[in-house]
Each structure stands twice: as structure tokens, then as C-alpha cells.
């Protein structure tokens, strides 16, 4: 079928488990970033059989630490909030990846055409797509890699 997910997918897979505590997940995200040498903002979540059950992102973790009434803060620039971030992080500790992950995950197959992937990413504001083959995750397609591929063609 020509230029497909298979051509640009990253097969170095980092995964989280629904029972992984949020703090551990944050450490895994950091480790992946260091090993891959590029930012890693989210990961797939798989169950014990390796089946994809969700995605967890940096955004999900940040959402958890955000105080419910934060919208009032902006008007209180001079309020002493020392230690509040530490407190918010401590409160997040008992939470597990399964508590905050997104379960409504869009996936593609290795044969999905790159233009279809571009369409999905634009329409649904998605930056990373798991690539599934026979129900198993075999790779990830990142927006940056898609763009790189198009840049290579543009500057030929």
C-alpha cells in the first residue's frame, strides 16, 4: 500500500501497567526520555497479557495535581503558596495509572497509510498512535516522525 505506519513507527516500546503508581509512571516517562533522547509525553498502558487498555500522558498526571479551584488563583498573585506543589504531589501518590488513563484509544495498523494517519492526528488532536497487529501493540507513530517524513519529501 506504499507509505504506511510501518515505515515510520517506532518499535522501541515503553509501557505502563494499570497498577503502576503515578509517581513510578512519571519516573518511567523520564527514563524513556533519557534513553530515546527526545521528549516522551505519553505511553501506552497494557494489561498482564500485553493487551492495550489505555494511554496515560503527562497531561493526565498534571491534571491530577491541579487544584480544583485553581481558577481563582490567578487573581491572587501575592498569596504565599509555598509548599503547595509538594502537597499536591503527595496527594497524587496513592493514585494508579489505571485511575487516570484514557481508555478511549485510537489505534492504527502497520498498513494504515500515512495520509490517513495525518488526517486522524489533525482531526482528533492526537500526537501519538499505537500500531496494533493481531491485537498486540507492535509500534508507535509519533506526530514528529510523521512530520519528519513529509519534510524529507518537501525538501527533495
Amino acid at each position, binding site marked *: 500500500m506504499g507509505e504506511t505506519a510501518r515505515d515510520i513507527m517506532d518499535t522501541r516500546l515503553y509501557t505502563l501497567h494499570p497498577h503502576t503508581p503515578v509517581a513510578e509512571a512519571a519516573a518511567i516517562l523520564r527514563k524513556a526520555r533519557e534513553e530515546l533522547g527526545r521528549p516522551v509525553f505519553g505511553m501506552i498502558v497494557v494489561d498482564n497479557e500485553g493487551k492495550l487498555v489505555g494511554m496515560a500522558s503527562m497531561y493526565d498526571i498534571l491534571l491530577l495535581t491541579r487544584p*480544583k479551584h485553581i481558577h481563582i488563583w490567578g*487573581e491572587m498573585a501575592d498569596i504565599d503558596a509555598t509548599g503547595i506543589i509538594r502537597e499536591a504531589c503527595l496527594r497524587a501518590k496513592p493514585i494508579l495509572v489505571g*485511575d487516570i488513563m484514557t481508555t478511549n484509544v485510537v489505534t492504527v495498523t502497520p498498513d494504515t497509510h500515512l495520509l490517513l494517519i495525518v488526517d486522524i492526528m489533525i482531526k482528533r488532536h492526537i500526537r501519538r498512535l499505537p500500531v496494533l497487529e493481531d491485537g498486540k501493540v507492535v509500534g508507535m507513530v509519533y506526530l514528529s516522525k510523521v512530520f519528519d517524513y513529509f519534510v524529507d519529501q518537501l525538501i527533495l
Partner: protein
Amino acid sequence: MIAMSIIDRESVLRGLTVQEAMRRLVIRSTYHAPLEQATRLMIKYKVNALLVTDEEENGIGVLSKTDVMAAYYAEMAVDTPIEAMMTGPPLFCSLRDPLDEALETMRGKGVHRLYVSGEMPGKAIGVLAYPDIVGILYRYCYKCERSLTRRRGAQSSIPEAERLKVHEVMTPSVHSHAEDETLFQVMEGLSSHRLGAALITARDGRPSGIISKTDLIIAYRHRVAPDVPARTIMSSPVLACSQSDLLCNAIQTMIFSDVHRLFVYGEDTRQVAGVLSLTDAARIRSGTCRACIATRVVIGGGSA
């Protein structure tokens, strides 16, 4: 309480509409989704209830943390569909309804939230809940030129006696359980007293933690057996204030520390005398001092 009746007559919320106080993000789920998904949304988005919808996104019910706790107590499987536990139908108000009127409806009907409908009846475009009112009240106090919260360390022009104290607004009783009582017993206590959280005490009677409905739904999601001792899931330390603290400072602590309630110590600092929640603070519908009632200032500009 005399203070309460004065405040009720002249609310600083007068002149505001629902639109100015509601949250626009309505967390929702369809009726056939499992309770497990509902608990995930409650934890992730820090909401006390979900709007339950049909396939066309029409609101058909509400699932609160209380309902999820009931499922935990009944040892129902986490994959039970939401419709088995939801209550309904949801109560709606309109964008341009006066805020005071909406709060009256909430009080009259004994509900904690109203969903807001726009052009399309039955479709929620916002939600109005008690704790969100506190945000408005607090913002109002903060902007007030006599504010004591605005200029930290500066002298306030409001005499001490004019400022509301925690004991005037708090619920003057507290429900507690011993650390070795089971989650079943804690849930029975919360349910029969219609409370959102219980104080957990150590053998010597000192407060050692809190179990809120949020802690219980997290335990339910994590498949913790409901016959484990309270100490297994309690959160500590106990966030507390003194009954003589200023209400505005206590509200500030709750907003900044992202907690819904503070336990209140009485004269004897070893004894917990009551609980102050954001809902208590919202119910009085006043700013945090009596000045705004005396001068009949109306929030949102102008004066009465």
C-alpha cells in the same frame, strides 16, 4: 444562628446569574458504562458526581460518589453498569437564571448540584455546585478594598468582631471511627449521618486520619476488600484549623490545599469540635466579613 439569618436576607450573590458561576466542563458518562469507568472520571477530574446520559447525550441521571460508595458497600462488581446505581432525572437550571434562585432550588430540593441547559433542553452545557460558589465569594472578598486576604501582613480596616469566624459557619459536630473499625463500619457511619468524610482516631482518641468518600471510591477502584481496617486507606495528616480562626483564612487553606473540608479544633486543641466544608462556606452566601452585608454591596458592580 442570628448571623446566618442576617446574611440570608442580603446576599452578596445578588445580581449574578448562573452563567457567571457555573463550570463549563461537565463530566459525563453513558448509562451502560461500568462503575469502574465512572470512578476513574471522578478521580481524574475531581468531581463528586457525573451526569449520566443516553446515546444522544441527553441527561437522564446523576451518579454521585455516594452512589458509588453504596455499590462498594453492597460489594457490587466494578463492571456493574452505571444505570444500576444512578439516581435521576438530573435537575436543570437555565444559563440566565439568577444565581440566588438556583441556590434556593438546590437547598429546597436537597441536591448538591444543578446542571445548566442552553438552547437544547436536556443537554447540559454547564454545572453549578456549592463549592464553586465559594470561589466567587472568595474572589469577591479578595477584590474588596477592605480585604484582609489581599494585603498579607497589612492591617485590615475591618474590626475583628466584624469578621466571620470558623465556629459561626462550621457543622458543630464530628463523626469519628476508630482506626481498627472496618470500611463497612465507616461507610455505615457516613451513610447514616449523610456525611462526606469521617475522622479516624487512634487508640488514645487522638485524630490520626480522615476517610472521605473520595478515599472510599479509590479503594473500590483498587479492589480493596471493604472489611479491612480504616487505617489501611485513611489519609493523614488531618488538615485542621481552630474554631476561632477567621473564615476567610480557613477558606483560603481549603482552596490552596485542594481539600473540601477542615476539621476544627475547639478551645481544647486535643478535641475536634466540628467540621468546616466549602459547602458550609457556600451555604451562608456571604463574603467573609459582615461589612458587605452592612453596606449592601452587590457583587458584579453597583449597589443595592
